[in-house]
């Protein structure tokens, strides 16, 4: 696997929203956007809100559809896959092996305990068709992560729906870092966290970087950005 | 004495031909229910009209007829049917199982083993073994055609689950010739083994339901069961109170109003013969 093959290669990407319900209003959020991310890099997307920072992350994850351009992700075998042309099945495979997305909000599923939410990525099947770990081992590992992020053990068996924003975010982070992908997309990972937990997250990001994980992040806190980012990309309104 | 004003065996010849065709088809496909044009008979439905129509279609003037009902030659049903055939055919009648060429029976198989050349005609109330589980005939026909018999085992499973044993004691379903599941008519399960590899021809007639089916001589007839709960027959602790037989199906007879009871052979002919043999040892049955 070549170390110079980018983990993400966005080239000439346009993103246009057509709001059919609002009189066909057209929103051009990105125009001719390009970005390349290499292993070990942490790219900060900066700029005022509404400039399309989250949109870039969602496009990279395949959550949004690009209106034009190409988005290349490096697959597990080293080849680049253009997700604008890929089938849903291929994107699902890439999400399992190539790219992870840490959204700002935890999407809560009823009845699943915090421990199991964090353990779930370890139970997913790897390329050989077997889950990475057995249930008990996965839960033990999840427990270690929850501890590291200072979630009290009394909460581990509860579904996170009633947790505070900060607690939910920490669970989200634990779940995303417990099994890292080569490319990690972080959307405001420390937004609801206190200084202690913020520094833990910084440690996690730096550790991931050291392992060669490529990161694109939106950090509202300039101190966090300074601590983790290797470079910055300033987002501006697309020129008409 | 034969009544000359009635056609031989009551049915007209065309009807007999139709029924014989159905019988041939039934014999060619053991256990398969063949529809036939059941006629109005001088007895109502539920009184053996199916069996009577089968017998009427195969009986000839040189046949010897025995008619039993629950093993007995003397009950009202047996007596009436026997008299019907005497009146319409004039054939010789008998109570002796070994002497008969045709035996029409309601709900029992004679204890005395049958031999080649004899015909046993069963009276059948409900020919479809899956009737109470699947009331739609369109569906049961499909199940038979596709050999989808899981439902029959569901029924047996339910019995085991609720009663600890398979509670069906009569009309116990059987697999004929390894292909069709058949309702053998409400004979006690005690009699089921007698159907297997029987040298005689076994014909089944259901008048109300308008079906005929058959088990040709020397055909395999297996009673359904589970590996760990196989089919088993009834057993009695006592012998017959009249003849002393230990190997026949016994009826329980209440003898007085103090709870006195007697177990007696259901097959009256067999009982009489066993009794006679016991009194005169050496007499062949």
């Amino acid at each position, binding site marked *: 696997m070549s170390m110079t093959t980018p983990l993400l290669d966005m080239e000439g990407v346009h993103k246009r929203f057509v709001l059919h319900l609002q009189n066909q209003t057209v929103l051009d959020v990105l125009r001719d956007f390009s970005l390349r991310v290499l292993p070990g890099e942490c790219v900060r997307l900066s700029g005022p809100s509404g400039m399309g920072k989250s949109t870039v992350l969602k496009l990279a994850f*395949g*959550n949004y559809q690009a209106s034009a351009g190409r988005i290349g992700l490096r697959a597990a075998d080293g080849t680049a896959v253009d997700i604008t042309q890929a089938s849903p099945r291929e994107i699902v495979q890439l999400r399992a092996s190539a790219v992870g997305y840490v959204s700002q909000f935890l999407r809560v599923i009823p009845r699943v305990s915090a421990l199991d939410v964090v353990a779930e990525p370890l139970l997913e099947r790897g390329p050989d068709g077997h889950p990475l770990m057995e249930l008990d081992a996965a839960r033990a590992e999840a427990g270690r992560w929850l501890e590291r992020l200072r979630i009290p053990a009394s909460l581990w068996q509860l579904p996170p729906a009633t947790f505070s924003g900060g607690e939910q975010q920490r669970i989200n982070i634990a779940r995303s870092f417990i099994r890292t992908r080569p490319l990690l997309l972080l959307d405001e990972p420390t937004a609801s966290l206190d200084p202690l937990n913020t520094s833990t997250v910084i440690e996690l990001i730096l550790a991931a970087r050291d392992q060669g994980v490529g990161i694109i992040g939106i950090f509202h806190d300039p101190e966090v950005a300074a601590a983790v980012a290797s470079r910055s990309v300033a987002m501006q309104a697309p020129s008409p | 004495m034969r009544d000359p004003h009635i056609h031989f065996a009551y049915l007209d010849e065309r009807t007999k031909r139709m029924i014989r065709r159905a019988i041939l088809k039934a014999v060619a496909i053991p256990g398969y229910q063949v529809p036939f044009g059941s006629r109005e008979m001088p007895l109502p439905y539920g009184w053996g009209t199916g069996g009577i129509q089968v017998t009427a279609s195969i009986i000839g003037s040189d046949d010897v007829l025995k008619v039993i009902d629950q093993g007995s030659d003397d009950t009202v049903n047996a007596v009436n049917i026997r008299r019907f055939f005497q009146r319409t055919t004039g054939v010789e009648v008998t109570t002796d199982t070994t002497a008969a060429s045709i035996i029409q029976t309601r709900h029992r198989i004679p204890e005395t083993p049958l031999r080649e050349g004899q015909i046993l005609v069963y009276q059948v109330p409900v020919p479809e073994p899956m009737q109470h589980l699947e009331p739609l005939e369109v569906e049961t026909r499909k199940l038979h055609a596709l050999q989808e*018999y899981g439902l029959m085992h*569901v029924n047996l499973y339910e019995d085991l689950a609720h009663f600890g044993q398979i509670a069906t004691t009569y009309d116990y379903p059987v697999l004929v010739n390894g292909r069709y599941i058949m309702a053998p008519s409400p004979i006690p399960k005690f009699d089921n083994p007698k159907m297997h590899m029987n040298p005689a021809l076994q014909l089944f007639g259901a008048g109300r339901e308008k079906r005929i089916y058959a088990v040709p001589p020397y055909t395999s007839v297996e009673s359904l069961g589970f590996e760990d709960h196989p089919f088993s027959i009834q057993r009695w602790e006592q012998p017959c109170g009249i003849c002393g037989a230990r190997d026949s199906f016994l009826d329980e007879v209440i003898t007085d109003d103090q709870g006195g009871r007697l177990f007696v052979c259901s097959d009256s002919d067999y009982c009489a013969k066993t009794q006679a043999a016991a009194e005169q040892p050496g007499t062949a049955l």
Partner: protein
Amino acid sequence: MSQAPLLRVRDLRCAYGAREVVRGISFDLWPGEVLAVVGESGSGKSTLLNAVAARHAPVGGTVEFAMREGPDGAGELADIYAMTEAQRRLLARTDWGFVHQNAADGLRMNVSAGANVSERLMALGQRHYGRLRAQAADWLQRVEIDPSRIDDRPDTFSGGMRQRLQIARNLITAPRLVFMDEPTSSLDVSVQARLLDMLRMLTRQMELAAIIVTHDLAVARLLAQRMVVMQGGYAVESGLTDQVLDDPQHPYTQLLVSSVLPP
């Protein structure tokens, strides 16, 4: 991972007399994939499901299923409507499951839960009562029904329990493809959550492929990786579930997504 799809649907058309209700739907389904078919009443989604599950003959197009054969597990794609009825019925009993919206439609209400769950095994020739019962009890536990209720009839069960029983009855033969028609729509909300969680877990554990018809977008998001949006018999949009829900392109999809009230 096998290269061939498990199910291939091409230009499927269904009609009730002159009225077309499914107009040229095509998709492939791979092992382990869950596809949600969403739409409002009259969109044709239930008819589509029934046509793919061989319960309603289409007037055009093909439905092909990879039969369970070959050393690598992936068999030839066979046209299900070219098969004999016997083959189709066997398929429906072994390799397919069908979960009805109303559990009573998918159960025998007059026999015990244990008999309901083990019927498929008996139909396949299993004849050991003790083992049948043990397997049934095991599955009851997996769908969170107290195994002591194995001899009770489903008419003594609550709606949620009946639905879980239906699922056990279908999954005991480890089918590769399960069809579900609004599996949670007739249940109370709290009961729905339990059932959805169970379906999520079971589809993952057993690597089931599934086609789920639902009008509930939240169910689609929770259970399905892929989604098809139907309107008036047409597939107006399809793709990755979260993409269709978060970045809807078609006007109807946008209407659907924006119409859902958040709690």
